[in-house]
């Protein structure tokens, strides 16, 4: 495990693929994903863990990649929107398309990743569960009502 300062080698598994990254261990995970690995599906929103646009899974748990130091992902599994399903057919992705959830779409990768972590932990969430779980994911287009409907629809279809 690296102990900070200068360049070290970080070993992470992203969407099933192992990478050895020579990088500053304090680099935000979001930077590593977007700039080093070219995975631009995860978005930069606020940079301060306030908006949820950068949400990814770290060993299946939803985290904000913009404030997660790369060293925290050392020897761990990261899943991004690109790796949520092989063919873009996760029940959440299908429900999102069927119900026309996205408007500008910029926050939606984060919304879906948070919702995916919710469904993994709670396969049949109530409205209140959904609202609580997704409270940290902001959408300035205001797609919240359709997001909630899409999470319910995805919950009905078992992956």
């Amino acid at each position, binding site marked *: 495990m690296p102990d900070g300062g200068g360049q070290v080698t970080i070993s992470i598994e992203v969407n099933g693929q192992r990478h050895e990254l020579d990088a500053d261990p304090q680099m935000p995970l979001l930077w590593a994903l977007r700039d080093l690995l070219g*995975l*631009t*599906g*995860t*978005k930069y929103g606020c940079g301060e863990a306030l908006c949820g646009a950068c949400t990814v899974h770290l060993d299946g748990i939803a985290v904000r990649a913009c404030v997660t130091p790369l060293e925290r992902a050392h020897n761990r599994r990261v899943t*991004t*929107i*690109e790796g*949520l399903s092989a063919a*873009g057919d996760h029940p*959440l*992705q299908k429900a*999102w*398309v069927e119900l*026309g*959830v*996205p*408007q*500008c*779409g*910029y926050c*939606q*990768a984060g919304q*879906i990743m948070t919702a995916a972590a919710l469904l993994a932990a709670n396969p049949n969430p109530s409205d209140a569960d959904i609202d609580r779980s997704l409270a940290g994911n902001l959408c300035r*287009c205001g797609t919240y009502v359709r997001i909630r409907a899409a999470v319910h629809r995805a919950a009905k279809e078992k992956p």
Partner: protein
Amino acid sequence: VITRRAFLGGVGAASAGLALGLHRARAADAGVFAPNPFIQIGSDGVVAIVCHRSEMGQGIRSSLPVLIADELGADPAKVKIVQGDGDARYGDQDTDGSSSIRGPYDHMREVAAAAREMLIAAAAKKWGVPASRLSAHDDAVHDGKRALSFGELAVAASKLPVPKQPKLRPAKELVHVGKDLPVIDAPDQVTGKAAYAALPVT
């Protein structure tokens, strides 16, 4: 996603297509008969429609091309949507004031109606029947049970004059306008493929 330059270059290379509208575009850009940049029909049957307003979540890429397709008689689900870069030949491209449907509505219908009339005229010529008994829908011109696809008619239609005052369809013939429409970019938005920055010129 495809850049306008790559798109027009491709159309130019194919060369056997129909591109039309109500005024003439710069020939240098297209290299083929291209009086207007909004509609391009290849002899392969691909109908490409330019969305000349900016998408910012209001769904203009999912709606304005459907209006054109509906008036034309093309299946919106098969239409290839091309994003129009800023260019004077598209006319007003202001995307503001909730006006991106209301503003271009009549003009886009006229452009599509002109295309439809030319395709119908080409079919009428081929069959030796009056154009008045033909109709255009589902990417083809129909005469009872027989049909010629837009792709089959593209070359012949491209040789006809562009009607100056095309007749719009009666409202009841517009089958998609006013309906709930799919969000065309949603599959890319939910998989992280959607691009949120200007693309490099190639």
